[in-house]
């Protein structure tokens, strides 16, 4: 009886190990967004974006703190967090998605579509992002760029400032993954 039990425990622990092995983590992913208008260009960077990549399930999850975006000017940071994103109500932006036809074992660069739900300002939207995935010796890097419309996420910009902020924001991301070991 004891033998069976210990075997069971062993099996479970191995099964756990197996699932962990397929997971990769990026604690310091970079997300940058740009707003280009004739009045002013706004750029903000977040260097502490968390992402977990599961190569077995071909899934990717991303989470970031809106207040961790760094702007050139203090005033932009304040407007962004207090008026537009309302970080006190929605402190995080999330993405959950699947990489379509992802071949994890393939070395080098591959271009794939990531399809999933992006949640900003408490509003979820389905998006598709063309991304470049690089596999170098079992470590993955994912890069990509997409546009998001301000109105899609019900971000209200006062009419006085509407000429300063672009209607579509260009977003860039870069994640360098490491094996997820605890």
């Amino acid at each position, binding site marked *: 009886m004891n033998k069976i039990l210990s075997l069971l425990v062993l099996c479970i622990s191995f099964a756990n190990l197996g699932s962990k092995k397929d997971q990769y*983590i990026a*604690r*310091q992913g*970079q997300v940058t967004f740009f707003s280009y208008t004739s009045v002013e260009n706004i750029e903000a960077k977040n*260097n*502490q974006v*968390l992402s977990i990549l599961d190569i077995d399930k071909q899934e990717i999850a991303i*989470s*970031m*703190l809106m*207040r*961790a975006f*760094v*702007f*050139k*000017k*203090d*005033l*932009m*940071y304040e407007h962004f967090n207090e008026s537009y994103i309302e970080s006190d109500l929605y*402190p*995080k932006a999330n993405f959950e998605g699947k990489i379509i036809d992802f071949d994890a074992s393939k070395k080098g660069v591959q271009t794939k579509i990531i399809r999933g739900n992006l949640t900003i300002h408490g509003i979820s939207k389905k998006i598709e992002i063309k991304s470049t995935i690089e596999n170098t010796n079992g470590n993955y890097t994912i890069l990509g760029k997409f546009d998001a419309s301000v109105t899609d996420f019900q971000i209200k910009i006062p009419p006085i400032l509407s000429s300063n902020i672009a209607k579509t924001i260009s977003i860039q991301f*870069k994640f*360098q993954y490491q094996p997820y070991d*605890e």
Partner: protein
Amino acid sequence: MKIKNKFLLITLLSFLFGILGYYYLRNPLYTSTEKNIENEAPALALNANELIKAFATAEDESIKKYEGKIIEVTGFIKEITFLNDRNTVILTSQNSAFGIICDIHPNQKDKLKQLQQHQKIRVKGICKGFLKDVILLNCSIDLLPNE
């Protein structure tokens, strides 16, 4: 003719300096988010384990308590990284799943060079919240003597 030229030059130069001075004075209005908090007093001081435990057990409460504030954290270095051209120190905790990501201010470069893994340090930064790790930005480093 010569005197006239000189006069023109002086007025032009003073005009130019006037403009420069004006922009220089105006500049502080547009300080970067990446401000230096090295000489500012922290609102709270605690150790890495306490901070992580607070966020891991009661995130909402901890956000209210720590978010946006300058806090001083004492802990051991798990890792020093230079990803994305940023200098980052990650502090460990008893719970290995969580840590503290400290984004170091560029003016701390010299101190950063003296850091080693497992070293005990004190970091002062602005708390931004919690994902899998607590995130501190604009950090300054305080090296502790080896105990």
